[in-house]
């Protein structure tokens, strides 16, 4: 789960980090008042879960409260990478001496948190990694000891030659590690970490992703989820415990298991069709989940056919069949349904489906071909 910049900055402040001031405005008038309170000039930043806000015109400098109001008016309601901006963060303009990059994320290969720092901040760090990899310094952290003081200082000396600045940088780097661990984040990033002309090191941007698996034990973090950033289908899927990703095709897919679900989408494409979604109903086979899955898929007007691909292991085919029959009774599908069921309790499942006038095939290729043909 991604946090907005202003939410991430709150976590930074809670860790004691030096962060530039700022408040959220949801209408242009509020932005004007904030700029006024900062002495007239301000930076106005779109709060949206997308990179490239600056390039999209979502970050603007204002030199008067009236200009801040105009900028906020332009940014609020604009669409960045398909996401509508509902909030802007208004902050005073800083006098920037240098811009650095500091990030920490959980590294797959090292199976531990890894820091990446660079004196070349303020730009896309992936671009730095591609063009000048030597400018990025990495450090793996042993999760059992955490980030040690000398490690934080060592990283900071890569950013600042001045020892006063390096000490401040080391503090920020340690605090960023605390943010990661104390909030169950999978990634925390400051870009840029600035030093001001007055010799202050502070974060003026913030990006934090929370590990979804942490949310069950962190209710205050879970409450930060922005409902406006989620489609109704995504919301319904999450609440039903289904793993769902909307795509652009017309073959609705309902599968058990993530790997088989991906392989099913690939097979739809192989036979010349386009999958409408990824949907994994999961290992347990509660009929209610099947009903919820069908509700979500049929709510997409682009879907022309719904394909079930169930390989029963833990999942019992009869449970899925009961769910399908129940769903057909409750919802008006409006589109044909093709079903493949094999594995645990397959025969029982066929009887249940037959009782409702539905049939199932045994092979994955057969059902996908059928679906693609019906989708036209």
């Amino acid at each position, binding site marked *: 789960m991604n946090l907005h910049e202003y939410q991430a900055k709150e976590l930074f402040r809670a860790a004691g980090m030096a962060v530039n001031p700022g408040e959220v405005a949801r209408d242009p008038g509020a932005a004007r008042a904030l700029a006024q309170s900062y002495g007239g000039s301000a930076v106005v930043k779109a709060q949206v879960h997308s990179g490239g806000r600056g390039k999209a015109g979502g970050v603007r400098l204002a030199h008067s409260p009236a200009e801040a109001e105009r900028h906020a008016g332009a940014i609020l309601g604009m669409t960045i990478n398909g996401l509508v901006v509902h909030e802007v963060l208004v902050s005073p303009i800083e006098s920037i001496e240098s811009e650095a990059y500091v990030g920490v994320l*959980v590294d*797959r*290969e090292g*199976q*531990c*948190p890894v820091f990446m720092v660079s004196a070349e901040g303020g730009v896309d760090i*992936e671009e730095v990694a591609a063009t000048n990899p030597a400018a990025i310094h990495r450090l793996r952290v*042993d*999760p*059992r000891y955490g980030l040690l003081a000398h490690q934080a200082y060592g990283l900071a000396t890569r950013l600042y030659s001045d020892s006063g600045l390096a000490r401040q940088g080391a503090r920020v780097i340690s605090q960023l590690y605390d943010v*990661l*661990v104390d909030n*169950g984040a*999978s990634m925390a990033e400051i870009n840029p970490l600035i030093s001001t002309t007055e010799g202050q090191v502070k974060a003026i941007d913030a990006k934090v992703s929370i*590990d*979804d*698996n*942490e949310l*069950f*034990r962190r209710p205050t973090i879970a409450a930060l989820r922005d409902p406006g950033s989620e489609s109704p289908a995504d919301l319904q899927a999450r609440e039903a415990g289904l*793993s769902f*990703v909307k*795509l652009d095709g017309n073959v609705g897919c309902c*599968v*058990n*298991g*993530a*790997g*088989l*679900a*991906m*392989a099913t*989408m*690939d*097979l*739809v*494409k*192989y036979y010349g069709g386009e*999958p409408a979604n*990824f949907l*994994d109903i999961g*290992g347990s086979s509660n009929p209610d989940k099947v009903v919820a899955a069908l509700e979500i898929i049929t709510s997409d007007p682009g879907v022309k056919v719904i394909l079930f691909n169930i*390989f029963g*292991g*833990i*999942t019992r085919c009869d449970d899925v069949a009961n769910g399908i029959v129940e769903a057909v009774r409750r919802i008006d599908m409006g589109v044909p349904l093709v079903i493949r069921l*094999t*594995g*645990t309790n397959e025969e029982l499942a066929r009887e249940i489906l037959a009782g409702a006038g539905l049939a199932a095939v045994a*092979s*994955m*290729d057969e059902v996908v071909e059928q679906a693609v043909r019906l989708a036209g």
Partner: protein
Amino acid sequence: MSIFVDGNSRVVVQGITGRDGSFHTRQMMAYGTRVVAGVTPGKGGRDFEGPEGREVPIFDTVADAVAETGADSAVVYVPPAFAAGAIMEAADAGVGFIVCVTEGIPVLDMTRAHALARDRGSRVLGPNCPGIICPGKTTLGIIPGRMVTPGPVGLVSRSGTLTYEAVHHLTRDGLGQTTCVGIGGDPLIGTSFVDCLAAFAEDADTEAVVLIGEIGGTAEQEAAAWVSANLDIPVVGFIAGRTAPPGTRMGHAGAIISGSSGTAAEKTQAFEDNGIQVAKRPVEISALVGAALAR
């Protein structure tokens, strides 16, 4: 032969009294797995009732279970909040092979669990994995025993049901298996493709290997390079997720294309460049294995 476990493995089940743990313990025992102990804190001293009236002693701690029964392998069916702790407890008790089925464990918890298991010399399979089955001998985890049969093929996969799909075709076509291993769909897993390939390379009975990967990370690329440098038996590969959009998690926590890295195209290319035949559809896997073994 089989890899990592065999019919002599003595298994302790952590979370044996839970809904999933009790169901799958009975399934494992019915298949022939030697389940020698269960662990549920607070229920030590009781017995777990297995199939055909067979009883399994329950202990409060893994250390007690190991001391009393000589358990050398563990299966963890503990909820996500406690699963990393369960892995560390098993490693601390000297259990050498730990299968963790649990899905949804916080990744920071797993950084600590993997570090401790490495220090203790324990191998972790998973988490978020279906486990391991040696046809006709033993099963640790949740892979249904019906669909496998003994034979010369080793199979290793990141996915559960896609494994079933592939094994189903192999078995139907008369191509039995030495061992089928699900390494798990999480980003931080204890046993890699390469670990499994190295074990299959040491196993005289394994004459061909099936490698089922998916988008996200670079484990398939590393496996491909390893195969080309070290393995002289045929390998057939499959990659799921050709149609997955970048930057979106596809069910498995580890199945995400980051930037231009971790795509199915990149992994398929790595397979082909290193002499691994790639099946375009799951149904082709078995045909390619059959053809390779016939040569």
